[in-house]
């Protein structure tokens, strides 16, 4: 292993070693604050290292990993997101669970899995990353053992994810059987050398789409999303919505552009159908919900559909759009779930629409933040979501995907309805006693409050002045 190899994988090492460190420290003494600080520090340190290390140069560790601007960008994004999730986890678990320390090990491992995913260039590393991510998620979802629905969600996710992994694995096997290689570039070379794609390979890709589609919860593989979102603890839901999905989107972009998937009408067709179906079904299902977590689950299905529009655009602008949209979506989702978890009480999460009634007059700042997040999800100007959506539409129009773009516009309007509905409920008059809040150390609330405030500032900043982020993305994200 050369020095450069080592320097490249340091981010992964930091994560692994901090997981081990936490493991040891738990065996010595359980201390929530201590573990929390270690986790945050290691994530933050990892990010700082990445910032220093970022040079945009490519470095390949054969045959598994590739370190390039795109990978670094996504790793950075994942690390920051996990950091935010950690921030909101402390207050959340402090109130609820007596054994809260192991959660952080799982969180770090899941982050590790996602980070490995975005830099993989080989089926083995892909699968490894995916499984590390999923296995940690199984237990994270079911972490609040005493809640019935949490367990249910855990089991559901376990079965579904295992199932989808099996699909993915079988698909990989078929691809390997025809092409004789598991490297992305090898597959690309094989595809370039043949005129028509063998049926077995197509079947393999199809199965892989199933596997990936499950993780992204795009239609028709979206059934688990609502139940899992609802059952999982709010910070974990935030994690699923952002890191787990984002990692897979990044992987998909890398894989697809490497094998030049855009040249194969059958694959483009499959993704087009998935995108349109996700937008419509996701939005329509969200319309019918009365549970904020479920609304967000279905809305995330729709958002994955939007993302696929940019993904299908395929050119450099498309990749930029995907990256920017991921950033915007991460910020927004984290904010929404973060607020949800600060509103939650000991017994259950604040997920019913009634919990939000008149929130604006009870807790104006929280409500204003949540409104901003929802407006961003709906893609209203002055927020990051608007610029993200604009980016996607620009990518779609630029590559002449008129059908997809028009569908996106139609769906934005449908989506608007249920986001606005939540906001309208927050603006209603509230009759009833205000529950006292604050049984914990006030510093806890300050931390989560500051985190939320930073997210909101970022949201508006990206919405009003997106140029900085665009330049960063443009500079880093260059796949070819």
């Amino acid at each position: 292993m050369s020095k450069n190899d080592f320097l490249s994988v340091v981010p992964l090492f930091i994560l692994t070693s901090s997981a081990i460190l936490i493991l040891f420290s738990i065996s010595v003494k359980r201390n929530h604050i201590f573990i929390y600080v270690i986790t945050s520090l290691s994530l933050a340190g990892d990010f700082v290292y990445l910032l220093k290390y970022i040079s945009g140069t490519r470095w390949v560790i054969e045959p598994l990993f590739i370190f390039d601007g795109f990978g670094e960008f996504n790793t950075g994004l994942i690390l920051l997101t996990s950091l935010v999730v950690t921030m909101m986890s402390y207050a959340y678990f402090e109130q609820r669970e007596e054994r809260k320390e192991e959660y952080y090990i799982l969180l770090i491992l899941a982050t590790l899995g996602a980070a490995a995913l975005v830099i993989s260039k080989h089926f083995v590393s892909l699968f490894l990353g995916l499984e590390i991510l999923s296995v940690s998620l199984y237990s994270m979802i079911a972490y609040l053992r005493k809640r019935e629905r949490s367990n249910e969600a855990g089991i559901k996710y376990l079965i579904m994810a295992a199932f989808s992994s099996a699909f993915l694995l079988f698909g990989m096997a078929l691809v390997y059987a025809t092409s004789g290689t598991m490297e992305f570039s090898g597959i690309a070379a094989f595809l370039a050398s043949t005129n028509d794609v063998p049926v077995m390979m197509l079947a393999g890709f199809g199965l892989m789409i199933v596997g990936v589609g499950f993780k992204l919860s795009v239609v028709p593989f979206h059934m688990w999303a609502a139940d899992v979102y609802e059952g999982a603890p709010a910070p974990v839901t935030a994690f699923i919505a952002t890191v787990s999905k984002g990692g897979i989107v990044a992987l998909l972009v890398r894989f697809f552009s490497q094998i030049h998937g855009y040249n194969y009408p059958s694959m483009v067709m499959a993704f087009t159908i998935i995108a349109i179906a996700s937008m419509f079904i996701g939005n329509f299902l969200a319309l019918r919900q009365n549970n904020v977590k479920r609304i967000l689950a279905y809305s995330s299905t729709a958002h994955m559909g939007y993302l696929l529009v940019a993904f299908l655009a395929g050119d450099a602008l498309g990749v930029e759009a995907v990256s920017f949209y991921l950033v915007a979506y991460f910020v927004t989702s984290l904010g929404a779930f973060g607020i949800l978890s600060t509103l939650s009480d000991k017994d259950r999460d604040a997920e019913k629409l009634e919990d939000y009634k008149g929130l604006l007059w009870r807790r104006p700042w929280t409500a204003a933040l949540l409104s901003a997040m929802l407006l961003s999800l709906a893609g209203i100007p002055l927020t990051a979501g608007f610029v993200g959506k604009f980016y996607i539409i620009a990518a779609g129009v630029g590559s002449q995907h008129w059908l997809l773009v028009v569908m996106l516009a139609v769906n934005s309007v449908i989506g608007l309805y249920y986001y606005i509905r939540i906001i309208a409920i927050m603006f209603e008059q509230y009759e009833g006693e205000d529950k006292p809040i604050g049984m914990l150390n006030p510093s806890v609330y300050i931390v989560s409050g500051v985190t939320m405030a930073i997210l909101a500032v970022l949201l508006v900043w990206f919405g009003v002045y997106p140029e900085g982020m665009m330049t960063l993305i443009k500079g880093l994200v260059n796949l070819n």
Partner: protein
Amino acid sequence: MVGGLLAWMSEKWNPMLPRWISLIATLLNFGLVLFIWLNYNASVNLSDSNWLLTLDLPWIPRFGISFHLAMDGLSLLMLLLTFFLGILAILTSWKEIQYRIGFFHFNLLWVLAGITGVFLTMDLFLFYFFWEVMLIPMYFLIGVWGHENRRYAAYKFFIFTQASGLLMLLSILGLYFIHGNATGVFTFNYFQLLNTELSPEVARWLMLGFLAAFIVKLPVVPFHTWLPDAHTEAPTAGSLILAGLLLKTGAYGLLRFVIPLFPGAAVEIAPWAMLFGVIGILYGAMLAFAQTDIKRLVAYTSVSHMGFVIFGVFSFKEIALQGVVMQMITHGISTGALFILAGSLYERIHTRDILKMGGFWSKVPFMGTLAMVFAMASLGLPGLGNFIAEFLILIGAWQANQVLTVLATIGLVAATAYSLRIVQKVFLGQDGKGYSLTDLSFREKLIMVPLVMVIVWLGLFPQSVLDTAKRSISGIVPHLTTLSDASEEQKTKGGAHE
């Protein structure tokens, strides 16, 4: 001058304003615009271009988006109207709005800022941005402070306008990429996009996208259904701004964007647009006559009056376009005034049902007189502003299409019917309901008297307004006339071949 523009923009950063601050802010803006207007002729003579002020800062260079504001005669007039009505909106809600005052004014000023932006911007992305910015606070204005059925009305308003706005965004982007691919310069700059070469097919589609946004906003008859609901449920200030200003953004968009950007396609669609205009005039008038809710009634008169606007715009005659500008202003004032009157009646008797009113003249003579004036204005009595506007539109349109013009003129008769009905049902007739009414307070007089003065002044001396708008209008007309001449030539040539 640039500082003045920035001041308007910074207006929105004043958070949570109480009444006085917002009043002063709008007054300042109004004063500023008035000052510019008074100096208008001097400054126009000094410079060759008809752009009075411009401000151009790069915003998102990645996409060629800049923060580009510019003002010409047309936008100047619209701004005058904006701030004038803005002041009145604040004054009318002085007593009506009793809770969440800060938030109310915050929204009100944001709407005004958005509208100001729409009237000033010369960058299509920025235009869309402001277009959306003015929606959200309007949604809140209706949804939080509206009447009984406010939630439904607010949804409907928001979803209608948002959907059509997104279609416009698609068109803007289509234009952007076509221009970029053709010239290599990717930009949203209005002036550069003006010269984009488009094939007729593409131009038609792109124009329809823009048109969707504007005719929903205007609104043109089949897309008008959001309007009566939104107007009826909104608080008085909200109705005032909706009728007086938001509808005008649609008309402004037609004048500023649709026609100059897509002259060919606009000529193609003109007969249809004029037809829909006439349908709007008659249909709006008929429905207005049938309403019993006074605010709904006034809302349908807006539909009718806006029919004149689209009718005039698509006749492509300079004189009709002059009339359109006039109509935008006078309609803003007369309809706004009627909404304010309806609002103050509602404050007194807590109903909007005109069947429950009657015989109020003897109790509130001042209010009755005012209502009479504005009803007359609305039916187009000579001497008041609306007459000039409608007259100019009809003269212009006569040259373009005579049958439709005759039909549109019938709309004026219908206007007489519904306007007189307001006065008759509310102020004349039997008073058997026993409401005790007080006449207008000083504050209300302060609102209404300037409105009367302006509408009379517009009716008697319209020339100053026409002069201001003249250069922008005559800037629009040339590429149209050449184009329509060309197409007519082609037609005759085609005929000769046969």
